[in-house]
């Protein structure tokens, strides 16, 4: 969709977000808490018909962040949903795989490497770590020394 329509329709979901950030002309971040991520992604995927690109998981010092990137191919904008997981001891977030089957493997990779538990994920098995890698050691967490 064209840029003006995107700008006009994004505030419809604003009550579920912390805020909307625009770091560049075609780069929009929707910050939200972990509980809202499924509804926000459903809005972007179903209502606005954006294309799911990839997800990112990262370990910020005081919380985990899961980013889902959506692309608007017509106007070239990338809309990112940034979900904060505040509980560092047992991080969990709702999986968007029932909505977007293409997200299955990237969520498996985030689970392998960061230890984030995705609820309602159909197939949360080991993907990228070696078969003989010990359980419960998540390599990309900041406290793990390898």
């Amino acid at each position: 969709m064209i840029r003006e329509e995107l700008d006009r329709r994004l505030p419809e979901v604003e009550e579920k977000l912390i805020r909307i950030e625009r770091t560049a002309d075609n780069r929009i971040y929707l910050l939200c808490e972990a509980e809202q991520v499924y509804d926000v992604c459903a809005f972007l995927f179903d209502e606005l018909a954006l294309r799911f690109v990839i997800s990112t998981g990262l370990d910020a010092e005081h919380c985990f962040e899961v980013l889902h990137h959506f692309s608007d191919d017509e106007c070239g904008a990338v809309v990112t949903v940034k979900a904060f997981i505040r509980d560092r001891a047992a991080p969990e977030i709702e999986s968007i795989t029932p909505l977007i089957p293409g997200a299955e493997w990237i969520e498996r990779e985030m689970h392998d490497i960061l230890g984030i538990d995705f609820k309602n994920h159909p197939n949360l098995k080991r993907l990228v770590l070696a078969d003989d890698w010990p359980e419960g050691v998540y390599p990309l967490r900041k406290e793990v020394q390898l």
Partner: protein
Amino acid sequence: MNWKMWSLKKSVWVFHVNTGACNNCDIEIVNLLTPKFDVERFGIKLVGSPRHADALLVTGGGTRQAAIRLREVYRQTAKPCVVFCMGACACGMGIFEGGYHMAGPIDEIVKEVDPNAIIAYVPGCPPKPEAMISGVVKALAAI
């Protein structure tokens, strides 16, 4: 030199193994086998099975997953055979040194199976096809 070694030098069949490379070295190996460099005049041919091969062209640093498979492929290669470590990652893990997912450089992985393995190193990131040809010729002359 006996007829076995002489015929091995004149007809080297290669099998390409990727143990976790970024594909740069793989592209250069495939370039090597195109008609432009014409390695068939040295008797070098690409084969589809390690059992037919005389030389293993190994690219990539040895990841933990690939190390198990590389040992199996080495055992399946009919001896005598030569292992060529192509690229900086295969020679000594390259920029992945110290990574949590690496099991070691290729020569340590192969020497666990066979301490007397013949291993040749072709450094570069990626090595040019001319460098690979030069490496193969020097290794075969030194056997």
